[in-house]
């Protein structure tokens, strides 16, 4: 299973997590882990998800998440977890 990291950065507002989770549930994407923090007044959230059960291709999911983000006014990025593992784990 290839895990994907979704990051959300932006101004805190009502319903960010709800909207994103609705999208993920609708596309059969399972959430494995969520953590969030506030850095310099900015809302930072990271989700580790499993996209392997989704019918959609990675680039579609990535583009649609970006779209969801722009509706809420936050930046949403989806990346394969390998880039973080490579950089931070030996």
């Amino acid at each position: 299973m290839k895990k994907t990291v979704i990051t959300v950065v932006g101004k805190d507002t009502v319903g960010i997590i709800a909207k994103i989770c609705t999208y993920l549930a609708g596309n059969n994407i399972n959430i494995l882990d969520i953590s969030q923090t506030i850095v310099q007044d900015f809302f930072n959230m990271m989700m580790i998800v499993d996209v392997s059960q989704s019918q959609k291709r990675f680039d579609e999911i990535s583009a649609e998440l970006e779209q969801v983000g722009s509706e809420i006014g936050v930046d949403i990025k989806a990346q394969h977890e390998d880039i973080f593992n490579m950089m931070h784990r030996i």
Partner: protein
Amino acid sequence: MININEVIETNKMIEQENLDVRTITLGISLLDCAGPDISEVNKRIYDKITRVAKDLVSTGNKIQKEFGIPIVNKRISVTPISLVGASACKTIDDYVSIAKTLDEAAKEVGVNFIGGYSALVSKAMTESDELLIRSIPKAMESTERVCSSVNVGSTKTGIDMNAVKLMGQIILETAELTKEADSIGCAKLVVFCNAPDDNPFMAGAFHGITEGDAVINVGVSGPGVVKRALESVRGADFETLCETIKKTAFKITRVGQLVAREASKLLGIPFGIVDLSLAPTPAVGDSVAEILEEIGLEYAGAPGTTAALALLNDQVKKGGVMASSYVGGLSGAFIPVSEDQGMIRAVEVGALTLEKLEAMTCVCSVGLDMIAVPGDTKATTISGIIADEMAIGMINQKTTAVRIIPVKGKGLGDSVEFGGLLGYSPIMKVNNFSCDDFINRGGRIPAPIHSFKN
């Protein structure tokens, strides 16, 4: 499992500190395209490049999307054309026709540069080598994406001074033929000593004859990331400084390793090397000179610059070597002038001269790079500058290079705009005392002794 702070750190490097993979370069052997008939050779070259590289750009874009890391360039390097064309090319125009074929193939597959319009003449030139070198000005004039390089010396063979002399004239001719575009042809022409076979960076990339049929080489970058990391250790001692550079270089290189492995897998082409280079761009915050400033210099070029660059170069290698299974290419810090905001600033205020740059090239990864000089500089003077730089490489067993642009119609006080990644530069002062008699001697400088190192 990965934690949120690590994710934030990585994405900050990408979004705010210009971390990117500078290039995925696909090396393609064209040795099997050689033959006696020039039109057949051209056809084979076009067919092979467009076949092997057809998915290069789309694969690069796919990896960029999946990992969220920009892959700035997708490029191709080929076997030195003086070998491929040796049998078929009887005239300069024959060689230029191959340059045009390379250009068309590059456009067809969508890469922005193709390197390997090259000759390896570290001891002497064959007829074919010399013909290719003489065709360079016309090839640079009539193509857009072709890059050319000539290796004129090595630690094992010495320096071919006939080729050095010829290259002075060729650079001036190239400048003249491309004068409408600020002599930009010279920005795509490099003279080397000890050129590596697996360099993924332009303009000096070619696919060496020691390589396999096709190979993926990746060049990483990230001067901005190193600069930002060093901001957090201001005033600390050299141990702390060096440790910080090493750790950062490790992280940057890991990304290159990941991208190289992924590209190799998706394209079904073997992974060659990761080139651990700090390659600046004209973008603000993507500068090697700014790292030198952060280390403690007012401007690049101030006393202490050579030492600072030496430690930077060494720590980048030490950090990067463990991060990748195969390291190669040029691996180190590049110090081009026009492609680095901090270097440009240093030249403008008078802190950085050609002579200081030459000293810096003793400890950096390449050489005199992207230096604009007055258009009326003599051919022998350019040859003299090349000879000096080649001697540094030959004696110190390192790669050195010269990419110098005598900008036609411009002199001291002017500046020149190359555009894009090539940047802009003030015209630099050249020492114009004559070296005519030295260059006109002809012949070659013998290989150096490898003992009694003092």
